[in-house]
């Protein structure tokens, strides 16, 4: 209790406020991420069955045979059918790519559907499914088509009336990747749309619910009978893709939060050192009066624990608010409701507070137990007490430990730790070069410059610390805000102006000539590519399983169907880098050419034999060449190409791509009306959606970067606090010597400007540098080095530090010169 009382006194004296604030910011960053990740992940797990809308689902490339449904019902299972496919709907002169879903009675077997009677009206649980002849649409689709409830639209050969606004669908997925808006209609209308041609991209599902053992027996039997043709889905698998994304995002955000903890840790180190210095005499008096070293330690540990308790709770409260804000930013991406927040992140918050205080503050404070009692007689004794590097080593060890906890992998920890340390080292080296250079320059040039630069160059060490701390915060912010935008723009700039912006897919073989004719009539000459959707089933005779791969992308490729094609001529944007192309021979032997990165991802090399299966049939061929593809041409390209004739066994559709100026969009409507099963994809709008997703995702990370910047500002304020006495004295002395207040404030302002401009300039430089590296190495983009980022950075840094500095140091510059006499 003595510790609590003393803590209260320290708090009232303003001694510990910055320290507490630093802990609050660190805890807010960590708990905010913890709550976000927990709730999104718990949402995924708890609703796993809902996410499937069933206990088990059977996916089949053709309409589900009636017999299956009857068998399942006979076994006592509830059933429902769904069919999902991309298609285009027409409303007046508007057309939109939608993800259409036909459902039958009983859907959903798990979870619930929610609808609104009209846009903006209250949401209700849906009783049943859309009546035949009607459809439920997501509100954004209504907006895009300019429709309201009661209006009609065309889907294939069918006209449907909009009966309600679809606001929630349990098995919509996590939204990551499901870009097209939903249209839901009655399964009974599916035939009448005439969209079920061979090779069409319909996913038919039989949903099952009931006793789990019965469901599993039933699906096992189906799998035994039909082999690879059926795919059995269980709730866990359904959420796996989303879970992988969430897990990666959690790790990334966790490490971002750690950056805030590190910068806040620097603020703790600085403030606690300052605090400890002012405690030496007090401790010496206590020891002179008989306090033991153990009692002194106990007192300070007690203070830290109390402080951790309060600051941890306050930080967790801020973290909670932060996660609510982050959830709001990605609401559209999430698309589902989340379970209520748990209390575990609060514990995480206290642990973080504990780690920050015990790791960053205790090593310094614990040295106070050695305060010499003789100091009560000789003030010079014990001043060396805090001069030791040990607290820095402990702090580095704590940071490493926290990183290891967050990353859960030693190699990742080492590389992230290395990256952070080297970034800090480079920033420090450059900042020190600038500050000490300015110091040397001002010394040499003499005259009034000495005075103007005095504050900045007289405290070079604190200037460097401030520059680095603020610089790290600004750098992460710029990297997200400026460089991301530049990267996206650079990517879009690389797309040639006449690059294809429309794709027509799902063209049946007997429709190719008709579609080609319509396009030719509209002045569009284009090439048609055959496309086979197949799953890779065997590699060199051994079955391929998703579990064989580590990377999420390879797992997805192994699990999903993907697109193959054949051709006799190599496109100009393809280069053979290994093996030989089969050439234009009329009937070359069956062989495959694989794109290099894809080959690397799934572990395929020249001479390997791949087996692809679709619709119950399969084809095996040898890989005889590897290709590099320039995807940025935006032409149609395929990971795997086969020699002509190789894929003849498998069902195929055709696709084409072309550039369509906006004014000609009626051509598309004509094609869709004549050939309802053909699906157009408007690349421009897909790009826009991708950009929206990236923007939303990165706005969450930007919030984290803002917290890092806040921690950087705390370091700035801590450094100001440490130099506060010095500033007061300087200000008083200059006043006594005849300097006006405006002159003293101008000197301080210049110091803040310099610190801010250098920090911001360095941050801008580092962020653009990182942008160039990211563009060249990861995306192979031409990303020009933009000096303007440096200028913007310098300006933002200048204003940030100026405002924070003016706020933090204001009181130091009101010092009366009389103190020079009183302190004499």
């Amino acid at each position, binding site marked *: 209790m003595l510790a609590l009382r003393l803590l209260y006194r320290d708090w009232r004296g303003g001694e510990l406020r910055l320290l507490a604030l630093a802990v609050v910011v660190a805890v807010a960053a960590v708990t905010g991420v913890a709550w976000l990740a927990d709730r999104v992940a718990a949402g995924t797990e708890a609703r796993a069955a809902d996410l499937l809308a069933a206990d088990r689902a059977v996916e089949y490339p053709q309409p589900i045979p009636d017999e299956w449904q009857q068998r399942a019902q006979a076994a006592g299972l509830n059933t429902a059918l769904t069919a999902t496919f991309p298609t285009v709907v027409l409303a007046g002169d508007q057309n939109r790519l939608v993800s259409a879903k036909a459902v039958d009675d009983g859907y959903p077997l798990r979870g619930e559907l929610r609808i609104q009677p009209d846009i903006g009206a209250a949401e209700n649980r849906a009783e049943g499914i859309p009546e035949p002849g009607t459809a439920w649409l997501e509100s954004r689709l209504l907006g895009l088509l300019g429709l309201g409830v009661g209006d009609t639209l065309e889907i294939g050969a069918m006209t449907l009336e909009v009966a309600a606004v679809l606001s929630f669908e349990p098995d919509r997925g996590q939204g990551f990747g499901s870009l097209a808006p939903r249209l839901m209609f009655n399964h009974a209308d599916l035939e009448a749309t005439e969209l079920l041609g061979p090779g069409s991209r319909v996913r038919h599902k039989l949903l099952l619910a009931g006793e789990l053992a019965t469901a599993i027996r039933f699906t096992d039997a189906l799998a035994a009978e039909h082999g690879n043709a059926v795919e059995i889905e269980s709730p866990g698998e359904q959420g796996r893709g989303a879970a992988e994304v969430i897990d990666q995002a959690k790790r990334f955000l966790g490490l971002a939060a750690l950056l805030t903890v590190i910068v806040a840790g620097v603020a703790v180190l600085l403030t606690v050192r300052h605090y400890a210095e002012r405690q030496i005499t007090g401790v010496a008096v206590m020891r002179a009066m008989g306090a033991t070293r153990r009692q002194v330690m106990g007192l300070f540990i007690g203070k830290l624990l109390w402080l951790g308790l309060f600051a941890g709770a306050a930080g967790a409260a801020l973290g909670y608010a932060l996660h609510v804000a982050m959830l709001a930013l990605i609401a559209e991406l999430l698309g589902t409701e989340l379970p209520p927040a748990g209390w575990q992140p609060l514990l995480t918050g206290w642990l973080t507070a504990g780690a920050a205080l015990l790791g960053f503050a205790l090593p310094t404070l614990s040295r106070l137990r050695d305060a010499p009692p003789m100091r009560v007689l000789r003030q010079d004794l014990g001043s060396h007490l805090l001069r030791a590097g040990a607290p820095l080593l402990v702090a580095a060890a704590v940071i490493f430990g926290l990183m290891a906890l967050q990353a859960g992998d030693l190699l990742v920890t080492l590389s992230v730790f290395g990256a952070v340390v080297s970034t800090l080292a480079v920033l420090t080296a450059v900042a020190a070069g600038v500050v000490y250079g300015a110091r040397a320059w001002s010394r040499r040039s003499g005259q*009034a410059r*000495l005075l103007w630069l005095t504050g900045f160059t007289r405290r070079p060490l604190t200037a460097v610390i401030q520059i680095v701390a603020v610089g790290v915060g600004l750098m992460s912010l710029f990297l997200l805000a400026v460089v991301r935008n530049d990267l996206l723009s650079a990517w879009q700039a690389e797309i040639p102006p006449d690059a294809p912006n429309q794709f027509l897919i799902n063209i049946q073989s007997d429709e190719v000539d008709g579609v080609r004719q319509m396009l030719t009539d509209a002045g569009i000459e284009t090439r048609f590519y055959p496309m086979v959707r197949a799953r890779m089933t065997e590699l060199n005779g051994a079955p391929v399983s998703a579990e064989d791969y580590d990377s999420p992308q390879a797992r997805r490729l192994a699990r999903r169907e993907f697109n193959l094609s054949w051709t006799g001529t190599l496109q100009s944007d393809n280069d053979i880098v290994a093996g030989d192309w089969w050439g234009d021979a009329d009937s070359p032997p069956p062989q495959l050419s694989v794109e290099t990165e894809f080959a690397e991802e799934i572990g395929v090399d020249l001479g390997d034999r791949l087996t692809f299966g679709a619709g119950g049939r399969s084809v095996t061929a040898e890989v005889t060449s590897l290709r590099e593809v320039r995807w940025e041409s935006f032409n149609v390209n395929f990971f795997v190409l086969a020699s002509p004739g190789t894929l003849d066994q498998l069902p195929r559709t055709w696709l084409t791509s072309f550039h369509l100026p906006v004014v000609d969009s009626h051509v598309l409507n004509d094609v869709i009306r004549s050939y309802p099963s053909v699906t157009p994809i408007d690349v421009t709008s897909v790009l826009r959606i991708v950009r929206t997703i990236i923007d939303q995702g990165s706005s969450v990370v930007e919030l984290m970067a803002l917290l890092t910047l806040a921690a950087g500002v705390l370091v700035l304020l801590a450094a100001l606090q440490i130099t506060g006495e010095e500033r007061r004295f300087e200000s008083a002395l200059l006043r006594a*010597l*005849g300097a*006006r207040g405006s002159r003293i404030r101008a000197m301080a302002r210049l110091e803040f400007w310099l610190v801010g401009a250098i920090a911001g300039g360095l941050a801008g430089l580092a962020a653009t540098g990182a942008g160039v590296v990211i563009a060249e190495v990861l995306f192979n983009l031409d990303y020009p080095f933009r000096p303007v980022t440096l200028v913007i950075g310098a300006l933002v840094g200048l204003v940030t530090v100026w405002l924070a500095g003016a706020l933090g140091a204001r009181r130091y510059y009101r010092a009366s010169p*009389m103190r*020079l006499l009183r302190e*004499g």
Partner: protein
Amino acid sequence: MPVETGLEAGTAAKSDKGSSSSVAPILEARGLAMRFDAPEGRISLFESLDLSIDAGDSLAILGTSGSGKSTLLGLLAGLDLPSAGTVVLDRHDLTKLDEDERAVLRSGRVGFVFQAFHLLPGLTALENVMLPAELVVDRHARQRARDALARVGLADRLAHYPAQLSGGEQQRVALARAFITQPGILFADEPTGNLDHRTGAQIIDLLFELNRDHGTTLVLVTHDQAVAERCHHVRYLRDGRLFEAAA
């Protein structure tokens, strides 16, 4: 025995040390009072003090610790404003000026020597001495500072930082700083308070030499009777009143 006085140091106390000057006073205080609010109520440090000193004269204010002599020095130099009364420095009524106007008045005209030296730790001896000259934008600040340091015997210590200098050397740097702008009046607050007796005596010798060379008016606060006696005039501050020293 000290005798209470309301008379001016420069005119009425000629007998002290035989100052011959009779020009208008460079510094004049009338009815000076200083009061503080304390938990036990309002405390008066001193009331109704009158004081005046002519240009080129020197005045010592003696007193015990806590008698208010440093506060009085601060008021005379315009570092703070009195609770009542006026201070006229070089024909300017300080009590009618704001903080900035007083600062401008001080710059170049007023020099200071403090008990704790008060050098800026991050600046070299040379830079510390240059500081007041740079405040009045003197183009020759660097050369003047060199000369001033040479004058106090520190020509070989220009690039030293305060921490690398002894107490006596630091106070010499402070003296060089005080004289670099050739101020009309110098205020010294216990200039030997932090020095041993011998070094203190050397500093006082130097102070009076410089004072004589530059013709500067000197106001000095001390508790050292011997130092005080080297001034033309001596006053005691006790119980809030100013007494003239006994002959």
